[in-house]
């Protein structure tokens, strides 16, 4: 297979972990959490720190996830306890993480060429597929537990959760912790993949995550079977493949950023446009689906 496509798919799988993380905050909890721009390099820097201390790469990667959840805890605390707006809370965490990231290793670029990585265990592609599928299965399973249902309900209808005598803030904290943990994990995977951690690796990563989710959503239109996690994965891989093709075609390098944005615009307008075109089919579906309310399955 074409090595560029392989790299694009591998990078896509790494971003799939990121996209699943952002899926929890953006789609389920309906919070635009910008802290991921800090959490992504945070995961990379944590990994660099652990691996340079001589810790096994698998444990280092997993530790990046665990410590990454703390970033989510911070954001969630800022807006649940201090009542700072979620958007601003995310930005504040991101800003704090910038300084933290520089402190972790004392410099802004850490080469990892000399250390072993999680990809030494076997084929890169196989390892990434295993990681992504495991996370997907765990996440899908979690969303079906009582806690998971309440997490979804918190994003859907917060007062409903409160009326059940549950503390909705608890679920926001939980959701953001898992979300940021996954983003940090994705950062750790990326650092090992490219052979170094760099402070700027998180810049505009939120765009990649949202674009992946939006692209994945185009599959949603006619299906309740495809889960949100699956959509996020497919979206991330598709996004990276398109990016890889754009580079392979030898497009003017100065246009790349705009092209990325155009891809997202194309998919969003497809999403919106499709609603009009397929309205007729939709009506039928609604008739068949006697209750028109959102089902849990949609997530």
């Amino acid at each position, binding site marked *: 297979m074409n090595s*560029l496509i392989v790299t694009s798919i591998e990078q896509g799988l790494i971003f799939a972990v990121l996209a699943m993380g952002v899926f929890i905050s953006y789609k389920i909890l309906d919070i635009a959490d910008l802290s991921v721009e800090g959490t992504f390099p945070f995961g990379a820097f944590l990994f660099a720190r652990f691996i340079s201390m001589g810790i096994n790469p698998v444990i280092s990667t997993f530790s990046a996830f665990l410590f990454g959840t703390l970033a989510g805890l911070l954001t969630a605390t800022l807006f649940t306890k201090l009542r700072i707006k979620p958007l601003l809370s995310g930005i504040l965490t991101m800003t704090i993480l910038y300084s933290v990231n520089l402190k972790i290793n004392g410099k802004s670029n850490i080469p990892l060429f000399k250390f072993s990585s999680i990809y030494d265990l076997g084929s890169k592609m196989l390892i990434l597929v295993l990681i992504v599928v495991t996370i997907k299965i765990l996440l899908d399973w979690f969303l079906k537990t009582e806690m998971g249902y309440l997490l979804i309900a918190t994003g859907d209808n917060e007062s409903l959760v409160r009326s059940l005598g549950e503390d909705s803030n608890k679920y926001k904290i939980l959701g953001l912790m898992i979300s940021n943990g996954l983003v940090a994990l994705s950062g750790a995977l990326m650092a090992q993949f490219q*052979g170094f951690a760099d402070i*700027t690796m998180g810049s505009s990563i939120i765009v990649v995550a949202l674009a992946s989710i939006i692209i994945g959503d185009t599959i949603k239109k006619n299906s309740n079977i495809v889960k949100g996690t699956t959509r996020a994965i497919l979206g991330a891989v598709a996004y990276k493949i398109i990016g890889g093709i754009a580079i392979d075609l030898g*497009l003017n*390098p100065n246009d790349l950023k705009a092209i990325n944005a155009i891809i997202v615009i194309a998919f969003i307008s497809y999403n919106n446009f499709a609603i009009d075109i397929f309205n007729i089919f939709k009506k039928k579906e609604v008739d068949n689906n006697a209750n028109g309310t959102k089902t849990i399955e949609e997530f």
Partner: protein
Amino acid sequence: MKKGIVKLLVLLLITMLVFTGCSANDTPSKEEGTVTNGSQSSEQNVPEEVVFDIGISQLADHPALDDARRGFEDGLKELGVNANIHYQNSQGDIPTSLTIAEKFVKDKVDLIYAIATPAAQSAKQATSDIPIIFSAVTDPVDAELVDSMESPGGNVTGTSDLTPMDRQLQLFKDLDSNIKKVGIVFNTSEPNSQIQVDMAKELAPSIDLEIVEVGISNINDIPQALDSIMKKVDAIYTITDNMVASAINVVSEKAIANKMITVGAEDSHVKDGILVTDGLSYYELGRQSAAMAKEILVDGKSPANIPSATSENTKKAFNGETLKVLELDENNPALQGAEKVQ
């Protein structure tokens, strides 16, 4: 679900078609990038014209990095190396720089020229066979690109943009012996900048100077950072920092307003109003890298045996207008042999 996937594929196809449309428009610019050698020399020396494919991976659009690229391209021409240049720019996005490197590997280019540290690291990660020449990397050993400057050991070698800092700091004393404190503004995100700040701090006491540094993380912080630091220092030193380079006009304007002497680390700073430099030119650095590329491509040397080097040619230059505003004498011995830039 099937329907959904089919639609996704259709959409992918449409986006691709749009791209192909774009790329068709770009064809002329790609051809422009082809560097061909003057035919006279090739007729005599090389009977069969060998054309090398060279992939250039540049981290971001930036005057110094652009200079490093132009110097490389011009250097190849001067050396009579026939090359097909494939230029890619990752616009500061690191995962993209890895994709670009992978593309070059897939296209089986003869050599990769990587400009700036993350671009070089990505290229190194992508291949251990294709020779890689880097430029605009301050400390290639610290970045783990090479084993040591003298014998790089792998498939990577190149030029470091480490500045002759001792000479630059000495300029402050030569211009005004009363200068005690020198301010540096630097971007905390750039490993190269941190290295230079540490170096300046180490060197300063031997020249009887004290360094006051202020770190920024966003280009919009520069005016404030300058205002705060200018209250504390006698002069300003601009290092080879990408973010500061982008806002070099602001630095020189503020310094002039405060009647402060400024020394820059590279000649492009002086063009934008910094008083003087005795430093490297990224264009020259690019040409030096081109000479290394020739050794590998034409002479068949291995990158492992070509020592990584710092800039051979430094260039002294001063800005005439800034000099006038600061009421300094053009015949000052410190400016001897310097080129006047307006």
